[in-house]
């Protein structure tokens, strides 16, 4: 057995050190200085980013092939750490205002979850995928219930927990069946073992079970029921974290499973994904139209967006390597762009919630008069989510459309077109309130500095990628796991 390469795992090691440090130092911090925990957490993320920088261009395999560093892993790790930094930025003041004495635990749990995501990006093995997924989810259950005295927060955590545990159990069952059939846990070995039995019913059933587990993670219909209630009840930074980072982690695992492990079974799973994608985007969009709470609206919108990300999975039925690569790249690009526009929108919600904690859509009336910059940023995020050029969200959709057309699946692209129009309706109805309605309270909100930085970061990405989509699109071909 080859020696363990610690350099490959350096980002994870630094993050682990940071989260332990947070837990220890927190004990010695008086209540009014609990805010400092965020600084340690941020430094940990930055250190991890630097360590990640030293790995660029490397290809490493260690821990007996369970842990891999390649373009794909690096790309997702960069995404997760950037998102972690933004989540910390938007949490600082929110936590200090709401749950002052429990900040240490919060950052500890948050970093643990991100540690799980970093592992997820490198996992090419069923056991590793499972461990990573659990590490992402378990701290999530706890932070969802972080507003201890709020019944809705308790409900959020319990719902999330029960759904989470159930779907994990189902997934684990599926994984054990796959192991039984192939006697392998490594994804490449699984693919090789399954090459000659593309539609063995047992394999198809196990894939279904595993997809169900990940479907919960990415809140795909019909595994989405937890999402709106959990998002609404959780502290808003947690909702942002769940809808962006945790979802992206789910997709990171799903992409490597489907496009590496089960790549010979596309004929079996692609039609299933087609149904799931269509249902997810349609139900997400239609229900989003009826929301009066902004967090619930964003929750359903993120369900709909998950539907768009699932669409490329649906077009690869028996496809050749070119289409396979395009579909993979389209899903990947969408996840990257979605992460920034969605977290930007949540950052604005946090800024507004500081004075109007009810999170009603009507709180946004006249925002343009109160905070012109904040309203403009929100409008950009919403239009980007709706897919209006020249913002990043347009290109996300563009590449999905393009994969669908190249795979001759025009019908599913047409479904997505109709959904985009529905989506525009509710994104725009929030966007226009900020400009058309008079504000009930015209005093400025006072956006805190860290939140402003987070919003600016996300906005720069959304606009810059909108004008030069190659910024992101360049990554996907290099990071592809798909052969060729």
């Amino acid at each position: 057995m080859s020696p363990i390469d610690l350099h490959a795992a350096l980002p994870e090691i630094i993050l682990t050190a940071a989260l332990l440090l947070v837990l220890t130092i927190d004990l010695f911090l008086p209540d009014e200085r609990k805010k400092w925990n965020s600084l340690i957490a941020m430094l940990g993320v930055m250190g991890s980013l630097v360590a990640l920088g030293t790995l660029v261009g490397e290809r490493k395999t260690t821990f007996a092939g369970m842990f891999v560093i390649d373009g794909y892993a690096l790309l997702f790790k960069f995404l997760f750490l950037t998102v972690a930094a933004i989540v910390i930025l938007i949490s600082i003041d929110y936590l200090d205002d709401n749950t002052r004495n429990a900040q240490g635990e919060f950052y500890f749990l948050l970093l643990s979850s991100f540690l799980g995501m970093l592992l997820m990006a490198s996992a090419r093995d069923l056991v590793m995928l499972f461990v990573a997924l659990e590490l992402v989810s378990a701290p999530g259950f706890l932070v969802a219930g972080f507003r201890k005295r709020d019944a809705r927060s308790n409900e959020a955590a319990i719902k999330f927990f029960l759904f989470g545990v159930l779907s994990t159990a189902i997934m684990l069952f599926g994984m054990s069946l796959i192991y039984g059939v192939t006697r392998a846990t490594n994804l490449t070995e699984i693919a090789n073992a399954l090459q000659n039995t593309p539609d063995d019913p047992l394999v198809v059933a196990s894939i279904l079970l595993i997809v169900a587990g990940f479907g919960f993670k990415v809140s795909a219909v019909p595994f989405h029921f937890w999402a709106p209630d959990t998002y609404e009840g959780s502290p808003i930074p947690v909702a942002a974290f769940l809808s962006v980072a945790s979802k992206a982690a789910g997709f990171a695992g799903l992409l490597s499973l489907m496009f590496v492990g089960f790549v010979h079974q596309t004929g079996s799973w692609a039609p299933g994904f087609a149904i799931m994608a269509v249902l997810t985007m349609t139900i997400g969009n239609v229900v989003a139209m009826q929301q009066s709470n902004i967090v619930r609206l964003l929750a359903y919108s993120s369900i709909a967006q998950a539907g768009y990300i699932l669409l490329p999975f649906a077009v690869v039925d028996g496809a050749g390597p070119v289409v396979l690569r395009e579909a993979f790249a389209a899903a990947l690009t969408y996840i990257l762009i979605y992460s920034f526009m969605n977290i930007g929108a949540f950052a604005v919600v946090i800024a507004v919630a500081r004075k109007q904690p009810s999170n009603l859509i009507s709180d946004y009336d006249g925002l343009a008069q109160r905070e012109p910059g904040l309203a403009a940023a929100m409008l950009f995020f919403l239009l980007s989510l709706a897919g209006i050029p020249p913002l990043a969200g347009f290109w996300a959709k563009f590449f999905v459309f393009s994969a669908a057309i190249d795979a001759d699946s025009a019908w599913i692209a047409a479904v997505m077109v109709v959904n985009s129009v529905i989506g525009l309706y509710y994104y725009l109805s929030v966007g226009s309130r900020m400009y058309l309605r008079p504000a009930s309270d015209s005093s400025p909100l006072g956006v805190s500095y860290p939140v402003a930085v987070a919003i600016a970061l996300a906005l720069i990405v959304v606009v810059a990628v909108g004008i030069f989509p190659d910024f992101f699109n360049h990554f996907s071909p290099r990071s592809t796991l798909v052969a060729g």
Partner: protein
Amino acid sequence: METFDTWSLSLVVFLPLVGALLITVVPKAQEAAVRAVALVASGGSLVVSIVVLARFDFDNTRTFQFIVDKSWIETIGARYHMAIDGISLPLLVLTTLLVFLCVVYSTKIMPEPHRPKGFFALILLLATGMSGTFTSLDLVLFFVFWELVLVPMYFLIAIWGSERKEYSALKFFLYTLFGSVFMLLGFLAMYFRSRHPVTGAHTFDMIALQGQTFGSKAFVNLVFAGLFLGFAIKVPMWPFHTWLPDAHGDAPTVGSVLLAGILLKMGTYGFIRIALPLLPDAARDWAPYIGALSVVAILYGALCCLAQKDIKRLIAFSSVGHMGFIMLGISTLTDTGLNAAIFGMVAHGVITGMLFFLAGSIYERFHTRQIDQIGPGMMQVMPYLGGILAFSAIASLGLPGLAGFWGEVLSLLAAFNPAEGLNVGLFRTYMVLGGVGTILTAGYMLWLVQRLNLGKASEKHVGEKLPDVRPVELAAWTPLLIAIFALGVYPRAVLEITNSAVTGLTGLFG
């Protein structure tokens, strides 16, 4: 000058955008500075476009000039490729002119709730989208500019509009988006079946895409359907026109002017620039149906006009009819028809733009758009305004000697003799029905003038001492009035530019 030739189009397109960005950083209180920036940006864009016009090589209107072709999105081979030829040049100049006049008009006349900063920034953003659409030679670039107009126009209607403004704005946005995304699917379908003649890769280049065989007849017709949906909703052709009366009716004055004057032309331009040359066989299959819808639009638009009580909705429905003539010209697939279409676009831009300016000024004075409350007897109250209205209305109905005439008559003439392979009898029927449409058009326009201008003014209006045409209105309108007259007596000014470019295109249809 070589640098100028390369970057002049970018200047025309992006000067307004720079102006819009500048305006957003000017403090709200400095309204004079906001107006100055808007005037300089739109005026600069107009000046550059006139220099382009002066430097344009009129002996080679068929070849693209002022080409800029830079790498943009390498992974999909989309390029920053812009240029103009005889087809796009008139529309580009029309765009910069109308935008500048709208800015001039708005420096003094600003609809409620005022807020000039946002108003001018949105108009300038709109300008970038419109002129970008007419200059792009790359399908992706074209699409980005095409969509860029939606957001500013939405907010112009929703904030500064009247009556059911939010409903109308949303309807406009959703309708056009629906069509244009199908258009995008059509673009992608062509892209994946294309080969660039030089690089061998897939391409979005409009020139390289010409003459490619994309697949079976059924496939090509399906692609054409996607494009058709996008363009037809924008034009709008009957039966996709239902967003138009609402949007036009409720938009603020300059919003209606730009909507009617330029935005609608993006649809017809799309047919001429993209759908016809890239998919000529499908275009021939679709032509009879497009012709039929056009004739329905002409007659339906005219009949609706006869029933309108609201002056802005009446002009809006008249646009449906006039755009019908333009589409009829296009559907013949002949030189005459396409020349007529481009001429008609320019003429409709100046005439209907002028009519919407008038409707806005009338509304501002009378605070109503109901024809029976404004008239009768406007001639007595405001003789100059009434006179200009009569002039523009008569131009709109197509009186020989004014701009509206040539587009319509050439279009009907083209229908007499459509391109080879099209059913002559069918198109001649269209011609006859279109002719009936011109009579109806004359009917409702004259009736409008009669109801507004003639008769004895009510005591109330006489007592109000309403101001007649003001200097700023005169400044904004004079260029349009001159254009209406000049294009009427000297149509060759436009036709000479378009003709050679158009014959290059119709060569595809034999």
